[in-house]
């Protein structure tokens, strides 16, 4: 009974093919990793584009300062501080300011009382 075994070693062609396959695997992995990192770098470009959109819009506006908004001037003149341009007036403080955290329950109480008086 005879035992047949394969010849060890490899021919030039086999070596090239074997290394070629390894090289392909390494390149595919590298390309994939590059795609991943590029993708990550590009993944928040839309944030810059949206920000740029807002700044462009700002530049196109005729009025670019809040206190020059004609309707802001009007709401203080007509309603929040009648007859004058007083920021943080009593009415503005009542309508436009709030409280935080543990002050909230007392604040709600205060608002309810204010309504009963009014």
């Amino acid at each position, binding site marked *: 009974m005879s035992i047949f075994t394969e010849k060890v070693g490899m021919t030039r062609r086999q070596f090239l093919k074997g290394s070629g396959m390894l090289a392909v695997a390494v390149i595919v992995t590298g390309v994939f990793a590059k795609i991943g990192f590029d993708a990550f770098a590009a993944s928040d470009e839309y944030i810059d584009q949206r920000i740029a*959109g807002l700044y462009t*819009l700002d530049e196109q506006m005729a009025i670019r300062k*809040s206190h020059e*908004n004609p309707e802001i001037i009007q709401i203080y003149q007509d309603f929040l501080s009648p007859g004058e341009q007083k920021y*943080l007036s009593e009415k503005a403080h009542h309508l*436009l300011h709030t409280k935080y955290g543990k002050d909230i329950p007392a604040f709600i109480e205060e608002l309810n009382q204010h309504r009963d008086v009014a």
Partner: protein
Amino acid sequence: MLSSIVLSNGIIQVTDKCKACDHCTSICPTHAIKGRLGEKHHIEIRKCINCGQCLINCPFGAINDVSMVDERIIKALKDPNKFVVVQEAPAVRVALGEEFGQAPGTNVKHKMYAALRKLGFDKVYDTEFTADLTITEEGTELIYRVFNALGVPGYEDFGPLPQFTSCCPAWVKYAEDKYPHVLPHISTAKSPQQMFGAISKTYLAEKLGVDPSSIYSVSVMPCTAKKYECDRPEFMVSGFRDVDAVMTTRELAQMIKSAGIDFMSLEDEQADRFIGASTGAATIFGATGGVMEAALRTAYEVLSGETLGKVEFKAVRGRKPVREATVEIPVKALGGKVLPVNVCIVTGTKYVDPVIEDVLAGRSKYHFIEVMNCPGGCINGGGQPIRRDTY
């Protein structure tokens, strides 16, 4: 009731579609998402600030936000007794177009007004108006806090420096949950959304001669935390809910699509009178550093009495999570003394802790600190269109 769900469970929920990839736990600024890789995740409600960053960053669209569209907005629009008014945040107008094939940053403000009228809103206003109002109130508050710190008599009622902004409801909830001692530093000014709610049911009702009880105030926001904010119990200064319902940019796009409106071919329209006019300062509220820049434009002119030649403060712009700048303002009330105002801008709540620690330890050199929860500002909020084409 929807409002009790909102207040007890929050806005953000992880659904069964969760693939346990663990991506969101690194996104969450408050470590509110529990679950290891391989385990379905869930949100710890106590820690969640409803910012929705996990939602827009979930690879599988497995995270949902509570919708108020069907239960509140559609009902109000169908109710003939309701006078429905709507406000839209600055960040919505440069992102809404993305849902209709436009590039990010395309301004669709005027088409948005037209679409909202078509959807049946009785009056279309703009959050930018109350953003301007926020600047006059919050900016003035800052000036008074500075006077208080300088020992000018008559300003003792105002809080300590530095002053934090209060526009971002996610940041406010974070401070309330984790740093109650920093609350006196947060501006008492309401956020623009809540100011609009209060104004719409008082001033606007008066101007238009409409019964405030019939006014239904809706807002379109780039934000999921705004939904939580509108249901917070203290916002009822008008005697009613100040803001009745909030929808996100995504939900507005969905409403426009299901109403069969051809958005991009709409004629340009303008916002309505009284509380619809806006300025460039309000527009940039949607970007990180925008509130700061808007406040500086007004504070500089009010304090110095001079007119700004160049309105841009480029130093506060950018995308870095923590930025600082110094602006020198000559103060007329102090005889022309130049006051160097140190400002700081934080975008991303996960970067705010060291800034707060400094403030609490008394080491902070800043006068005014802007905090926005979402990286890049409101334009990258949890309610904005989800980008799937950029990898």
